């Protein structure tokens, strides 16, 4: 067969539904399923074809459960495509579907192109030509759209952004190629200059990757870390969030016993709350805050909820905590225990003026909705305001990550004094990956550029 790759895609339409399906087709489908599907905690040794299995899909990397699913194996050639197919039926949420897809892609499956399942069905004689004509039309329509080919629905600013980066890289490549093919006329590469150019280009790639991370918040959740000195009511706040909220996704102990973690949904976006409550058992928790784990937790947080005790004056320990979080974006102050007489003198400190404060009583379940509203207003609106055009799909995101990796390597190689002919390999790979996002080929383009920019020739 022409195709020896295994493809995967979300088969159901996006949005919330009762059921969502991720489908794999190709010779590795079963092997991939075996790695991530467990029924009663055990792997299934012999899959029966067309038999519905119930169990859990795990994220292969983190070994955490993604969803409870039904799984069906269709053995080649008795399947839609004529190849081995695995169909995973999970709960119909975009987040779950994307997590399942992402883990099968990590295991070597390739994201299916539009109509690719049908195309394979057709290639394997499962559909005749007339039946498949509609599919061919679809593929043709796609390839006629020149640049838009690989872009799918994402054009406009992302296309412009990526092609600008790509053009800059091509121009660096052109210079190296010209100096290799026309050594008499074109001088050797200015490595210092090239390094700084690459550095700037790679920053642009990082920037767009950062936007993806922000965009990812809509699907993979906003990380909210609850910080505060002991006895300010962090656990009560956590309990209040868990207890009141019906849309809890998980409420299990975190990766270490120090943290409690809960996911809830507000306005269609997942918020993951992480309580550092476990830390209070430590004798000197402030010192413990310096511990790497907490720092990294704070670093990774999208939101910090700094809890203060409303019934007490601001204490030195509070300020120590503040020193840890003052450089973070999205810090909110929860003034807890408002059911007791207010003694907090926070207004005396000018530096806190600009921070949004929410008064609540976690114990009495008061103020939670205000917290949620504030998070919604300050966060979800921002998400909605980012340029959606600059968001990529999973495949494009993978491409950009690869570009970032290649460029980092080129920079390292330039520093190490690696020869030009080797530098071009990784630059080309980066350009090719960018081209996969924009749908262009490189070789002729480089030559055209050389002739346009350098006066070469005998």
């Amino acid at each position, binding site marked *: 067969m*022409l195709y*020896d790759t295994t493809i995967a895609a979300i088969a159901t339409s996006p949005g919330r539904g009762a059921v969502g399906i991720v489908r794999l087709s190709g010779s590795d489908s079963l092997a991939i399923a075996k790695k991530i599907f467990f029924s009663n905690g055990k792997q299934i040794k012999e899959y029966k074809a067309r038999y519905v299995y119930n169990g859990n899909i795990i994220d292969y990397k983190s070994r955490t459960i993604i969803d409870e699913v039904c799984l069906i194996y269709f053995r080649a050639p008795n399947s839609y495509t004529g190849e081995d197919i695995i169909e995973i039926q999970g709960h119909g949420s975009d987040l779950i579907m994307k997590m399942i897809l992402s883990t099968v892609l990590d295991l070597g499956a390739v994201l299916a192109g539009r109509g690719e399942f049908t*195309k394979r069905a*057709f*290639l394997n*004689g499962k559909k005749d*030509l007339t039946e*498949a*004509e509609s599919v*061919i039309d679809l*593929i*043709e329509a796609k*390839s006629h759209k020149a640049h838009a080919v690989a872009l799918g629905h994402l054009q406009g600013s992302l296309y412009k952004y990526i092609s600008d980066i790509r053009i800059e890289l091509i121009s660096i490549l052109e210079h190296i*190629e010209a*100096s*290799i*093919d*026309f*050594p*008499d*006329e074109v001088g*050797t590469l200015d490595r210092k200059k090239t390094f700084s150019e690459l550095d700037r280009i790679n920053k642009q790639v990082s920037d767009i990757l950062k936007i993806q991370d922000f965009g990812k918040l809509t699907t993979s959740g906003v990380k909210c870390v609850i910080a505060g000195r002991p006895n300010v009511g962090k656990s009560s706040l956590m309990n209040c969030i868990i207890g009141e909220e019906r849309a809890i996704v998980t409420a299990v102990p975190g990766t270490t016993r120090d943290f409690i973690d809960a996911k809830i949904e507000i306005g269609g976006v997942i918020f993951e709350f992480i309580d550092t409550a476990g830390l209070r058992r430590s004798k000197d928790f402030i010192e413990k805050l310096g511990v790497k784990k907490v720092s990294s937790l704070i670093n990774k947080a999208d939101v910090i909820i700094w809890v203060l005790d409303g019934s007490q004056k601001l204490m030195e320990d509070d300020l120590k905590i503040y020193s840890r979080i003052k450089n973070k974006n999205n810090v909110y102050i929860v003034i807890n225990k408002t059911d007791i007489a207010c003694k907090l003198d926070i207004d005396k400190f000018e530096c806190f003026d600009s921070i949004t404060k929410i008064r609540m009583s976690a114990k009495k379940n008061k103020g939670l909705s205000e917290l949620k509203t504030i998070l919604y207003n300050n966060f979800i609106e921002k998400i909605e305001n980012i340029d959606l055009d600059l968001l990529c799909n999973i495949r494009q995101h993978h491409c950009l990550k690869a570009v970032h990796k290649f460029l980092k390597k080129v920079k390292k*190689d330039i520093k*190490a*004094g*690696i*020869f*030009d*002919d*080797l530098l*071009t*390999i990784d630059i080309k790979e980066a350009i090719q990956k960018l081209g996969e996002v924009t749908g262009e080929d490189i*070789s002729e383009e*480089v*030559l055209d550029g*050389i*002739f346009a920019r350098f*006066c*070469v*020739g*005998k």
Partner: protein
Amino acid sequence: MEKKILYDVIVIGAGHAGCEAALASARLGCKTAIFTLNTDNTALMPCNPAVGGPAKGQIVAEIDALGGEMGLAADNTFIQMKVLNRSRGPAVQCLRSQNDKWDYVRYMRNTMENQINLDIKQSMVSDLIIEKKQVSGIITDTGKKYMSRTVVIATGTFLNGIVHIGLKSFSAGRIAEFSSDNLGANLKKHIRMGRLKTGTPPRLDKSSIDFSKMTIQPGDNEFLHFSFKTNFNEKFKNQLPCYLTNTTPLSHKIILDNLDQSPLYQKVIKSLGPRYCPSIEDKIVRFKNKSSHQIFIEPEGRNTSEFYAQGLNTSLPEDIQESFLQTIPGLENVKIIKPGYAIEYDFSYPDQLRPTLENKEINSLFLAGQINGTSGYEEAAGQGLVAGINAALKALNKNPFILKREDSYIGTMIDDLITKEITEPYRMFTSRSEYRLLLRQDNAVFRLSERAFSLGLLSKEHILFIRDKKNKIDNLIDKWKKENINAFLLDSFNITRKISIHKFLKQASTSVPDLIKAGLISGSEAEIANIASINIKYEGYLIRQQKEIDKITKLESKCFLPGIDFDKIPGLKKESREKLKLYKPKTIYEAKKIAGINPADIVVIIAFSQKNNLIR
């Protein structure tokens, strides 16, 4: 009564393509004849008297590994030789020689004269004998017929050549040589032809040049060689220098003021010339901001006062040529011996060829060299070799010999020629190859010589020499994996831990001279050690390129069976159908490479051919 002679292979044209074709055919045991308009111009270098350079040097090494002659000819007749791209990496390093133009002609002519099975004929071929899509011989302009099993056309710029100097133009194959107009007209009956343009600079009189105003450009002071057959000699001690000078703002002004006399800018010349070899007029018009262009002044030989002015291709009138030349430092009083000129000529669209360089429509007719729209002696010679080998194999009823993109630059070139559209003369660049790291000058013998040996183009002695060298390299790499670096290297490279030589060489800043300095190898091992070191340094990248090749090989193994009729495939777009009929791909991979064939077409083709058992 007419006497009929039957040749196995007839080659038309004795330029760089024709010579390699005829030699290869004769060496494969075929009764061969080569026709030329003038035996005194055998393997003439009508433009730059130089061989090699980026990608071209690699091609010469490939020709040599395949038993061709070009490398030996260059090694025997060079007046200067140097390594280019030393600082840009081993994969793109290459040799370039300046050659004595007339020594080169003499060397090649002698080789041809001494070659058994090869007849040399000075005669103009005016037509081919073609019946039922099968070529069976040629007819000369005196009406004599020569019969042959196969024919190789390697006529260069000679088909309907028109030379332009200023607004004057006249028919010529090259300046002062006949154009082959009848053959040109007759070929058009069978082959789709187009028109291209190229040019050459003026030749200057040595006695009128003031070299003291130019920068001297010497060769490398060491023994260098294209051919693995060339033994150590001391010719490098007797090299001639080239000289570097440059155009001035005044030269540019003169040229710009006289564009009304340029056939290029007055649209007298309509065909396209190569972008990589622009005329000086073009350079000045297109790069207005550049106040100066460099000019290399190169001797055409040891016993001639003609100097070649590299960088000054022009078709302006002679007196304008003289006046702008005289604005160039060192050329203030220059006298022109031969003016520069442009030439337009017919070429055959190479997409009509198979990878063997045989025409797809007319059996046993092969085309090689500039007639296929290429430029450059090396490109021509590479094609000549492949066409000659295949013409001979066809005459002998043997399997064809095909070079691929991944095994050689020659294969890359032929693949480009038969699958891509030609809009300008095609020259090879290293950047045209996606496998540049694999296709090096240093490893050409290891890539290709076994195949040449099994064809019969290399002797037992030669292949044993190459195998021995290969073993030495492999053994050295193995040895270096086990052997650690010594105290000297630890010290001079500030390395704290003992590492293997293999690991040491993987670092960017290390090289074979370091090992020599450290006393780990002797100077005589340097050549072997260098190749071993390249293999070590490139290891990871070579593996990556090999993976790419493996993917393609898989696609290539999907062959269409002869019965496939692209007209019968439903659902194909009209243009795609036309392209497929034109290019006649033999494998899915070939079909995929055709410009304009999109994934949807491929899907339709695969589906149809599988359903009807037309694919293997």
